[in-house]
């Protein structure tokens, strides 16, 4: 059972505390989360330095950034200290519990006291200066420790509250205290479940804390060596995620067989499974849109919408990662595919495999298209802006094709090189999404954006040909690493 | 004869087929296996001890070549009907390896020969029918 990805930490900066902090995730993960934290704080600092000095909105803005920064670093990194605690108590390792406690204390100090002091010194009122970091920490902990449905609900809560604010009596301080108390109790209960569980991997998926959904951490997928280690059984229980089923697959339908085995939970879905998946997505969207606001929506709901859209756009990347990971799992489906008779000659099997990947990518881009159309409708965009979004979809599709082709040809998707290659896409997409969310009119920039997305799409598409051809040259389509 | 009468030790330096032939020879020489008695089938022995049937087969074939066993239709491998029991020299040959091992152990442990002989005599007296 891998609850924690441990990569032999050396004695940390502050002895055991540092070691505990280092042990709970991979170094790459720590760097990523750390960078996100610093960027958010940096943005806050910029706002403070150069933003309008109207006291209240400025205070709120600064508080917001501190809140989100704390949320991200606690959800992404420090909450995993609890995983370490659980693993250490299971192993009866003597000093580990103390090390974890000290690490938590140290983390709280740095992320609570320091920002609060800075905010206070800049003139932010104490309620915000202290409240924002505390809320961030609490939120981050809760998010990673609660099961996924509850975690999502948590994100939506502020939006909902704001929406219903006109119908409820005005917010008294004791309301806030009561809400905080409930939050703390929920937190305690979830932590208790986490620490008591003998085998966190065995908790049913819907009740499993978010940070355990991929027991060794989602970022582990991007680390080549750890990717080869088999997961604790992270099953996606039937109804939420449609898994490919072998009903019609067989030697008479080799294409279906390959579809079924390739890329596991991200594999190509047959008709029934696709309907199930669409059904669930529509249900989720309907639930999210409590009140169908067209044009004017509160901040949190916007954030959620963006999150969904970005997630859908990134699904191509996830598919590529998944394919690469499958290649590294030495006892997985690929060795089955390599030795299964009835899939045709190696050349034929290769063609079928590549077609399967393309079809799955197509399915994913369709989902992304639906998401973008939803975004366009909810924000009430003009046609020119919708066209811009479609351009982004095309570019993303081409880039995803490049990543999948790399994965299928034996290359590394999770590398610095790939990240640099994707940088233009990330920049252009961020710009496009900002335009879409804030509904900036396109007037003069339309042509420029068309050029940008056309070039990106063509460039990524052409670049994808190189690994695609390389994949054809391989000895057979299902080679392991 | 029951297949469990044979004791197989995979870890021993002696190859398995020789362990089997040695044990069968001793059983015949000692009279536990009489002429005309059927041996368990290759499959039985292999199945019980989880060993390769070819090992058992090899052992049986070797004993058949030596004339100790005969293959009969319907009965399988059977102890051959010998006119005389194996001669004294042959029987000593079966015991010699054990004597060698005993002597070696005693030397290594520096045990006096007289005491060893006494203890051996006691045991022989106990085992007399």
């Amino acid at each position: 059972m891998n609850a924690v990805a441990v990569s032999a930490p050396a004695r940390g900066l502050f002895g055991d505390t540092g070691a505990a902090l280092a042990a709970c995730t991979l170094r790459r993960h720590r760097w990523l989360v750390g960078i996100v934290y610093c960027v958010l704080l940096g943005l806050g600092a910029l706002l403070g330095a150069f933003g309008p000095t109207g006291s209240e909105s400025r205070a709120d803005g600064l508080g917001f950034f501190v809140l989100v920064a704390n949320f991200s670093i606690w959800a992404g990194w420090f909450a995993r200290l609890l995983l370490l605690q659980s693993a250490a108590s299971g192993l009866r390792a003597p000093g580990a519990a103390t090390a974890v406690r000290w690490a938590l204390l140290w983390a709280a100090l740095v992320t609570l006291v320091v920002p609060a002091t800075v905010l206070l010194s800049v003139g932010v009122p104490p309620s915000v200066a202290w409240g924002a970091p505390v809320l961030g920490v609490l939120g981050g902990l809760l998010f990673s420790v609660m099961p996924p449905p509850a975690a999502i609900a948590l994100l939506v809560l502020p939006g909902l509250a704001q929406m219903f604010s006109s119908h409820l009596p005005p917010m008294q301080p004791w309301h806030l205290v009561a809400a905080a108390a409930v939050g703390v109790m929920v937190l305690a209960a979830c932590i208790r479940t986490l620490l008591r569980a003998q085998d966190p991997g065995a908790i049913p998926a819907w009740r499993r804390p978010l940070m355990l959904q991929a027991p060794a951490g989602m970022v582990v997928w991007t680390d080549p060596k750890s990717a080869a280690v088999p997961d604790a059984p992270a099953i996606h229980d039937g109804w939420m995620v449609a898994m490919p089923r072998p009903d019609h697959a067989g030697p008479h339908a080799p294409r279906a067989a390959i579809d079924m085995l390739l890329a596991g939970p991200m594999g190509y879905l047959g008709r029934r499974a696709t309907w199930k998946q669409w059904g669930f997505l529509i249900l989720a969207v309907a639930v999210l849109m409590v009140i169908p606001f067209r044009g004017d929506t509160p901040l949190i709901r916007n954030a959620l919408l963006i999150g969904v859209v970005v997630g859908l756009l990134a699904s191509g990347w996830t598919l590529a990662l998944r394919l690469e990971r499958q290649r590294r799992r030495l006892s997985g489906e690929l060795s089955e595919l390599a030795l299964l008779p009835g899939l045709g000659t190696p050349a034929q099997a290769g063609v079928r495999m590549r077609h399967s990947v393309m079809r799955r990518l197509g399915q994913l881009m369709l989902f992304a298209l639906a998401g973008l159309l939803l975004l366009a409708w909810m924000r009430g965009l003009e046609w020119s802006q919708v066209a811009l979004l479609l351009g982004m979809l095309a570019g993303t599709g081409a880039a995803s094709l490049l990543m999948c082709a790399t994965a299928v040809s034996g290359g590394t998707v999770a590398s610095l090189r790939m990240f640099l290659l994707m940088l233009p896409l990330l920049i252009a997409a961020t710009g496009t999404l900002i335009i879409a969310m804030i509904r900036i009119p396109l007037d003069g920039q339309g042509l420029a954006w068309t050029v940008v997305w056309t070039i990106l799409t063509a460039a990524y598409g052409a670049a994808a040909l190189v690994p695609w051809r390389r994949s054809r040259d391989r000895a057979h389509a299902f080679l392991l690493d | 004869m029951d297949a469990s009468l044979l004791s197989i030790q995979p870890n021993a330096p002696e190859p398995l087929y020789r362990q089997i032939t040695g044990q069968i020879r001793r059983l015949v020489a000692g009279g536990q296996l009489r002429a005309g008695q059927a041996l368990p089938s290759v499959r039985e022995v292999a199945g019980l001890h989880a060993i390769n049937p070819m090992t058992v087969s090899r052992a049986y074939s070797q004993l058949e070549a030596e004339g100790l066993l005969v293959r009969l239709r319907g009965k399988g491998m059977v102890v051959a009907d010998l006119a005389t029991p194996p001669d004294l020299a042959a029987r000593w040959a079966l015991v010699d390896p054990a004597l060698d091992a005993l002597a070696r152990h005693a030397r290594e442990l520096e045990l006096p020969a007289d005491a060893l002989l006494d203890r051996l005599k006691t045991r022989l007296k106990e085992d007399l029918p």
Partner: protein
Amino acid sequence: MNAMLDVSDSAPLLSPPAAPLAADGLIKQYDHDSVLKGVSLTVEPGTVLGLIGRNGAGKSTLIRAMLGLIEPDAGTATVWGEPALRMGDAAKQRLGYVPQQPEAMAWLQVGEMLDFIGRFYPRWNAAYVDATLERWQLPRNRLLAKLSPGERQRVAIIRALASQPELLVLDEPASALDPVGRRELLREIASRAGDSGTTVLFSTHIVSDLERVASHVAFLHAGRLLLHSELDSLKERNLRLHVPEAVAAQLRDDVPGEVSRRPHPYGGLSITVLRGEDAPWPDLVQVPGVRAEALPLEDLFIEVSA
């Protein structure tokens, strides 16, 4: 060495039957880590070859390379004469493979997976599947991911055996099994080898399993094949000689067939000798005062890898 014969169905009488598995000079490196350093190995039909070696010696990598699952940096691997990397359907139908720690198709149920796989093999024995699932008490309706590692390994074994293969390749098949399960697996392997003439290659680090069922043994150490011979012959060809001081002092060169020598705790030398197939014992054996004993295989392997 076994040349790569072009075996086609149209000329079975002219060319001698190709060995089920053959490897020649396999070299494989992972990130500056040399896992296979030129391994050549042939598995003759009808034999049970036990591949033994420490964890990390390269056993699994060797097996994967021989089956064409990974591409070696150098060297060739053939299955029934065809290159392993381009195995045809005919060969795949006669091959059964049990990987180490199997985890394929974990989202399917046991029954679903076996039914699905069974469609691809013409000689699939569904009755055997049902009987064995029941005998080993494996639930048909359980998700593979929810099984314990031992149960998953059993399912993988059933999957490989149900197609009645002529060539069976198992990578540490007993690693997750309890002693009873191991014994049963060995029995199954032994009976198939004996009755149907199935060729078996299995890797293990448990020497006693090997000594029960294997007819041949290959010892892999640090990416090199140090021993490859018939099992019984190996047992009969090794001796550990205890050479007393006086005699040891007169030894100049290595004894022919010497594998290792070390000082004996009671004085003198302890020399392990492995003579060639038809070679005579070295003269040292006859020297008075020199005592000899045959080694159990495990000890022999330790001496060879020193």
